[in-house]
């Protein structure tokens, strides 16, 4: 461990002496390992370590970020001097001055424990786990063959120490363990593909607690059933029920991203895009009264878990939409200042060499009261889309598409045969207006969210209960 306190003092003092108005020091270390099994063969182990310091300064309205992996007095001094030089050189192009909102400073240390530590378990055990899943796929009683099978078991330990010129000190250590899988099934020349990720904060206990193997085998079973019994999807207007995974992607893409205040203000205009949302729409109705969407970094064991964000702001649950009404956006200190509110702790940085920007953590539709049977029982003719594969949404987050993978016909209140490639292609306003009931079964999935330049692929959870939408136009591929 570096002597972060001394280093931070060096950085902060030197920047303040050079006219900086605000200085932030973030030591950020990432230790990562992943093991890949591809079509039954162990590809090898990839094991990485990176550490360094990211420095942000505000100087006369200019915001500058520098980073270095040379954690010596010389390396840090050069990084500060570079930051000051960049700020002074670019000041004339900061037409709109950057400011940060007021916030409460904390001095806190917290650690997420790994109950079952990654390095306490032999590599051969981890390989056996992956091979066990693969063997069950190859030897299982499936009519479908799975010629493409890729598994990657991943572990990441992040250590951060954040100091700033206003007295903040946050030290944290968070491990994450997750499984990525890709399956491609074939039956009589017909193909279906699915990739997904399960995992969260914590150690190898996630394998059992989050049912990694069941997740893969359930997917295999659904592909087998789909390719054997699947029929062409019906099209036209009908009632639909979507599963937890689909609810999660809708929450993330159609609500989470457009509620990120930097997207609303245009900061991502040339990268991850803008937003249909506008600052003055707080308090307006955006969907049916059944729409409740939240983002909560404080869910224990979650993929997007943290208690203090990367600006040192205390994290809390953010209720984005309550009873169909726009309630709040996701903020860091910069966007909060811009819109005259307090930051709600959404600043995250991927690594020491990335600036903290507004990110989601764990975004989800809040659960309701219905069982799946109750959601389906009054649907005369519709479909149940449990999982998806292809998805995309435009860069203002209105024009979206989710193509089902595991999906079933609903007739007279019962789930019938699987249907192939049903397509939901709809505008966000229309979609949210048609949500009429929520299940009670909240479930989350791991996602890797892309944003920023250079891009910062960030671990998040996305989830929800089963959701019922009325009168949705369904197409097929």
């Amino acid at each position: 461990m570096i002597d972060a306190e001394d280093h931070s003092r060096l950085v902060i003092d030197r920047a303040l002496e050079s006219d900086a108005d605000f200085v932030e020091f973030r030591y950020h270390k990432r230790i990562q390992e992943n093991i890949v099994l591809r079509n039954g063969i162990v590809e090898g182990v990839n094991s990485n370590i990176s550490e360094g310091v990211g420095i942000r300064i505000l100087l006369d309205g200019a915001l500058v970020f520098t980073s270095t992996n040379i954690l010596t007095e010389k390396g840090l001094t050069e990084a500060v001097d570079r930051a000051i030089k960049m700020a002074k050189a670019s000041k004339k192009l900061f037409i709109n001055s950057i400011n940060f909102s007021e916030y409460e400073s904390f001095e806190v240390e917290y650690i997420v424990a790994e109950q079952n530590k990654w390095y306490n378990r032999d590599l051969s055990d981890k390989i056996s786990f992956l091979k066990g899943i693969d063997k069950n796929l190859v030897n299982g009683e499936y009519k479908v063959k799975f010629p493409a099978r890729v598994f990657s078991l991943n572990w990441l330990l992040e250590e951060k120490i954040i100091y700033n010129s206003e007295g903040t000190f946050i030290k944290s250590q968070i491990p994450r363990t997750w499984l990525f899988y890709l399956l491609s099934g074939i039956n009589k020349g017909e193909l279906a593909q699915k990739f997904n990720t399960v995992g969260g904060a914590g150690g190898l206990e996630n394998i059992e607690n989050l049912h990694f193997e069941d997740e893969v085998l359930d997917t295999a079973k659904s592909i087998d059933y789909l390719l054997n019994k699947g029929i062409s999807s019906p099209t036209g207007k009908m009632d639909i029920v979507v599963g937890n995974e689909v609810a999660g992607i809708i929450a993330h893409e159609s609500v989470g991203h457009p509620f990120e205040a930097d997207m609303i203000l245009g900061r991502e205009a040339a990268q991850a895009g803008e937003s249909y949302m506008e600052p003055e729409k707080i308090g307006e109705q955006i969907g049916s009264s059944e729409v409740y969407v939240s983002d909560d970094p404080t869910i224990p064991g979650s993929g997007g878990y943290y208690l203090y964000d990367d600006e040192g702001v205390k994290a809390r649950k953010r209720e984005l939409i309550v009873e169909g009404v726009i309630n709040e956006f996701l903020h860091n200190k910069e966007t909060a200042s811009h819109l005259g509110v307090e930051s709600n702790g959404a600043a995250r940085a991927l690594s020491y060499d990335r600036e903290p920007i507004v990110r989601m953590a764990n975004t989800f539709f809040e659960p309701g009261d219905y069982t799946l049977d109750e959601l389906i029982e009054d649907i005369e003719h519709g479909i149940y889309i449990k999982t998806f594969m292809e998805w995309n949404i435009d860069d203002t987050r209105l024009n979206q598409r989710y193509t089902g993978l595991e999906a079933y016909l609903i007739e007279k209140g019962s789930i019938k045969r699987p249907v192939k490639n049903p397509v939901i292609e709809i505008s966000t306003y229309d979609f949210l207006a048609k949500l009429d009931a929520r299940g009670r079964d909240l479930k989350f999935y791991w996602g890797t969210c892309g944003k920023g330049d250079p891009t910062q692929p960030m671990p998040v959870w996305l989830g929800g209960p089963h959701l019922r939408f009325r009168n949705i136009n369904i197409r097929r591929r």
Partner: protein
Amino acid sequence: MSINLSTIFLEDLMNRAYKYLSDNGAEDIAIKGLRTYRVILRFYNNSLATVKSYDDSVMHIYVGANKRRTLTAINVIEEEKITEQLNKVLRSIGELPEYNDYTPLPDKAVDYKEPLGIFDSKSLDINKAVDKLEASINSALDNKVKRVAGTLVLSGVKTVLKTSGGRNGEFKKTIISFNMRGFKEKDISYQMSAISTKLDAIPFKKIGEELGLALSNLNNVKIITPGKYNVIISPIVSANLLGWHMRFASAYTVDTGISPFTGKLDEKVVSDKLTLIDDPTMKGNPAATPFDDEGTPTVKTVVVENGVLKTYLHNTTTAKKYNVESTGHAGIIAPSAHSLIVGKGDFSSLEELAKEVSNGILITNVWYTRFQNYRLGEFSTLQRDIGIYIENGEFKSGFKGARLSDNIINIFQRTRGLTKKRYWIKWWDTPFPSYTPYIAIENVNITTGF
């Protein structure tokens, strides 16, 4: 301040790591050291959002022994921490099962030809970059663009390679990339993209003017009606979509069983009007490199020639499996393209191509390309920025909301023509530097969620 990208310190760490691994049983070792100096000027609403600056060094290390292989990336500089990480790697080697397709790294030293004229320390000058960016923004605003957003990235990279096969090399380059998206209204936007090895080679002022010109006649945008359209895709869109063809050409993707090109060698996969090349030896290619991660010298690789798939992209491991020579595309685990160069077409201008299409649409930018099935190539991608209707060979009014929903291989079987002129492209949603033209494609399925 002149940036010379010294790697004396990094090379010392590389030599020590190499010796430690070699002394402790490693048989195949490849260490790629990168020193990267980067300045990013990011702007929106006609004003800088932030300036970011990095100066980082990292070692990417491959270790093979007893037919087992591992990879590690290390950026720490303390010897104790480096040794600890290398011990982890060596322990992993001991616990891994044998890799049946294990292939030793190539041996015999090579005298690499360092690409000339691709390093220009003056291109990393922040003061000059700020002035250029200011000129570009002002030029757009002077041409009635309401607001602009984008990124100017100045990168200087020194790459040093040391392998147990005696393949040692180094080279320096600068990469300057610039993207600017201009808005006339919320729904009326257009994006320009450029990449070069020299700051002075990017026409900043002209980019601002062209943004203004592109948006000048567009006032109302309608939502597109779903259906089949003849489509002209811009160089940015060509880079996005044909970038997937290069990914699918990786022997690793083919071998995994998730490429539409599986089993298609020497077959006609797209229109004979299309030739797809990767050439990191090409003058002016921002992806220029004299060697890949294994030390194989890079060469011009014609992946698709007049519509016929000629080769997959190989490293030594995949090459041995397919009984061919490496194409110089390591990635030691998975080979990948350095760049995409689309062979030039016959049409003298975009306007001539529009006349050929007669009635159809121009898609100027896309993002969020996703697949229902990689192996089949079933994909969709979303229009981003303005689309323009083509009527009787003329560009008319704008539209929005289009989603290209089709098959990424099949649509290029229906290629009608390409422009002669090509543009170097690299932006947020394209995988690597690409030199691409406007391409006309027939009968593309368009849908919309509106």
